[in-house]
């Protein structure tokens, strides 16, 4: 799609900048933070809230005196759910806007589209999304959850409860393919069988045949790794055809709040591992939801990515204040100490020096028949251990690569 939302972008940018700089006077020594998120297009439903979360954090930090006395200035662009826009705007924020750090990306395709540009200009980018894992890149800090946090917990739990026959329905791009690989491996390790695996091109909205394939394969549960608004039509169609199988996912509910958008009981027995959703019943989560709603009363849903974006802002503040500079090497030296932690909406989280990924407390969210959420179990403080164990160590070298279980880091 062409740049249809120039107006909104300009408007938001203007409002954000005005609001943020007015209170602190001259923006001359401001810390500039680039924000590239989808505010229109297929992913907008899940990602518009991230911009608001970043705005909320920036306003809080500025009200409390900024980062080490310097105010935050946000440079916000709408990437329109379009990978090409990510590349354009990433060049723009790094080259002409000269931002100190960038918060960018929803889909893994977009991340992989902009990552080479961050490397080229030696920028620093926060990716605040759960994803398929494996990015070992010193220019990236990842606050989203990864498979060892979401699948190593979820899949064995589901197999114990619903049997060992598993069917995966996944979006057909790097996220879905690599996540499905993780699921396959964990199912095999636990003595289960993959009775089916189907990859759905992004944008597909008709699932008649897939529903039949699933019924024919008779799995104990279905792993749904569907992405984008079009693919979310699966739940309604499966419910209408009375498939009635439990579902497991790392992306649904926690990102696209499908339980709020669809009529009950189409998401009944959906199990999701997430580090935050607005239903989480801890004092920290409730306080976060409360102040978020106070600032953005019309926000449809405060999802996992909102919390991660908010946490990322605060982690960045902490790192800059400790290092006394926004210099990337100095910030990474702080991460290397292994004690960059923040106690936020999803509990205490820490950055792992080897992978620059974040530890998480993972909640198992279950969607009930009336689409209310219950939490059958919680896994505390799960480290993002896979990359480090597999041989990625960003404190020693920077391969700037993405690894998967079938293509791990080269062994020395």
């Amino acid at each position: 799609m062409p740049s249809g939302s120039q107006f909104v972008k300009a408007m938001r940018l203007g409002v954000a900048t005005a609001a943020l700089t007015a209170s602190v006077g001259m923006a001359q020594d401001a810390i500039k933070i680039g924000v590239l998120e989808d505010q229109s297009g297929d992913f907008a439903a899940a990602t518009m809230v991230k911009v608001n979360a970043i705005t909320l954090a920036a306003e809080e930090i500025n009200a409390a005196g900024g980062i080490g006395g310097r105010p935050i200035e946000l440079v916000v662009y709408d990437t329109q759910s379009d990978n090409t826009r990510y590349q354009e705007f990433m060049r723009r924020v790094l080259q002409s806007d000269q931002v100190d750090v960038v918060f960018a990306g929803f889909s893994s395709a977009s991340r992989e589209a902009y990552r080479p540009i961050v490397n080229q200009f030696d920028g620093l980018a926060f990716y605040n999304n759960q994803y398929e894992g494996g990015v070992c890149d010193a220019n990236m800090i990842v606050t989203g959850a990864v498979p060892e946090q979401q699948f190593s917990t979820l899949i064995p739990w589901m197999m114990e409860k619903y049997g060992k026959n598993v069917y995966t329905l996944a979006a057909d791009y790097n996220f879905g393919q690599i996540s499905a690989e993780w699921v396959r491996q964990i199912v095999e390790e636990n003595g289960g069988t993959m009775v089916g695996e189907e990859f759905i091109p992004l944008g597909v909205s008709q699932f008649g045949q897939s529903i039949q394939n699933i019924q024919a394969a008779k799995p104990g549960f279905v792993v749904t790794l569907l992405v984008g608004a079009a693919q979310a039509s699966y739940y309604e169609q499966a419910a209408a055809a009375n498939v009635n199988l439990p579902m497991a996912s790392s992306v649904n509910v926690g990102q696209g709040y499908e339980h709020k958008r669809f009529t009950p009981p189409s998401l009944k027995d959906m199990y999701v591992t997430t580090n935050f959703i607005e239903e989480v019943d801890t004092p920290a989560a409730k306080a976060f939801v409360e102040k978020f709603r106070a600032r953005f009363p019309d926000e449809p849903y405060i999802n996992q990515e909102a919390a991660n974006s908010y946490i990322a802002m605060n982690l960045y503040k902490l790192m800059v204040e400790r290092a006394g500079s926004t210099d990337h090497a100095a910030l990474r030296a702080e991460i290397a100490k292994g004690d960059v932690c923040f106690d936020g909406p999803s509990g205490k989280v820490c950055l792992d020096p080897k992978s620059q990924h974040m530890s998480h407390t993972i909640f198992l969210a279950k969607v009930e028949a009336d689409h209310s959420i219950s939490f059958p179990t919680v896994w505390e403080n799960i480290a993002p251990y896979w990359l480090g164990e597999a041989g990625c160590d960003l404190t020693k070298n920077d391969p700037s690569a993405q690894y998967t279980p079938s293509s791990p880091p080269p062994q020395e």
Partner: protein
Amino acid sequence: MLSTMFSFLFQFGDAFAFLVIASMGLAIIFGMMGVINLAHGEFIMCGAYTTVSLAQMGLPLPLAILGGSLVAGVIGMVLERTIIRHLYHRPLDSIVATWGLSMIATQGVLIVLGSTMQGVGTPLGSFTVGGFSYSTYRVVLMGIAVLLLVGLYLLFYHTRAGVIARATIQLPRMAQATGVDTGKVYTLTFGLGAALAGLAGGLYAPTMTLVPTMGATFMVESFVTVVIGGGDIFLGAAPAAAILAVIRSGMTAWQGQLFGQIGLLITVIIVIRLLPGGLSGWILGGRK
């Protein structure tokens, strides 16, 4: 065995219904009138949003769907009068203008109504054949697809209005000479196309995610059907939908959704290469 047969038949019918319902509006606006309208998906979105809003206000679903179709049709007529009409002989300009309309509509809905809207849920429940369960609403959609084809055929070939519409589009000057208000006919025909697009949105609204970009998911299928069908919607689009439905459901059953889409697109390439006038061009050509 019987349940497998039924399963294939159901998938074929499901794909056929989707292709027919999604493409009828486009068949009239693009196939018949020759207007390139890149905002077609937004008529579909408009129908879906109106349908769901009306249903949430308490209107029974069938009436809400008709309402959605009506609103899309009226908007279509207004746009024809104000914008599209001036671009009938300027195809490149009409691409730019309708593209602009499409962006205004998508972004306008995003700003005004937000990124998503709660659905109404699929009515009518499900039934079971053999080991498989199916949504009853899908069968209703198949019936509606057939009724639509029959209804449009009767309208265009067996009513005075239909004859006038076809005459106006084929030979506008001649029609004008015989006293036809061609401007009005263009407006009404375009409105009918828009209303059918709105109907498609309304009919599929209960089964889909409601987002401002939802029209886009109909576009590939409907363009493919219309292109393969060629200029005449009944001689072309109906068999085109049937053939594409077989290819799509067959390939999807065999190798999954990706191959279903690949099959669809390869069919278009082959048909356009061999039959530049589409199926209807070939059928009519054979008659001469």
